[in-house]
């Protein structure tokens, strides 16, 4: 079973890693990715909107796809929605596996697909003004690595 959550409130990635590690003592390796709102880039706040009927089901489907592709002991996907400030975590993905390579590939793949295919719309506040963020070409390039 994978643990897939869409949260509206701030979460603590270190606590998530501790709980996930404790839940998978049989795994030799755990790879995690933490994405956070960067400080210092002039962004005052970031908002992620989602469409509830699609977003969480698609995240669960992605997790199932990852589980089918690599041999994992566990997979965790935690994603925020709503307004976040610099330093605040946006997404935390962790993959536990017997073999290191599987854990790295699974976390990497999950992030590439979350970034490019998840039902999230992002806007950023800078200089007091909100503006919607367009899809990045880099996200599609990242995705094409897995084709």
């Amino acid at each position: 079973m994978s643990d897939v959550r869409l949260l509206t409130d701030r979460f603590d990635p270190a606590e998530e890693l501790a709980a996930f590690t404790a839940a998978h003592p049989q795994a030799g390796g755990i790879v995690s990715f933490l994405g956070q709102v960067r400080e210092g880039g002039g962004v005052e706040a970031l908002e992620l909107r989602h469409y509830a009927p699609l977003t969480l089901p698609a995240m669960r489907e992605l997790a199932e796809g990852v589980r089918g592709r690599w041999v994992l002991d566990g997979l965790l996907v935690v994603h925020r929605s709503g307004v976040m400030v610099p330093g605040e975590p946006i997404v935390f993905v962790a993959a536990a596996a017997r073999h290191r390579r599987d854990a790295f590939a699974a976390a990497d793949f999950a992030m590439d697909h979350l970034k490019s295919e998840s039902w999230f719309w992002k806007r950023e506040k800078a200089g007091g003004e909100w503006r919607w963020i367009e899809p990045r070409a880099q996200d599609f390039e990242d995705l094409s690595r897995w084709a």
Partner: protein
Amino acid sequence: MAARLVFLGRLEELAGSGDAALALAAPLNWQALVERLSAEFDPLLGEAICGDRVRVAINGALVAEKQALVLGDGDELAFLPPVSGG
């Protein structure tokens, strides 16, 4: 009779809000819907939702061909521009 419309991403700006109720006298096909939205919201909104990269979901399910949909009483129709990543 009414349907609920949901506008995601920058479509929200064109629509003026994230969701809206649309009064219906009878079921609307895609072309009639685009005309209504152009008239009641903004002609740019009607144009934007016709773009290839804007998907639609009816009652939470993605629609394969939006031109073929018919909007009826109680339906929720969501307009989904390209996602911009988590």
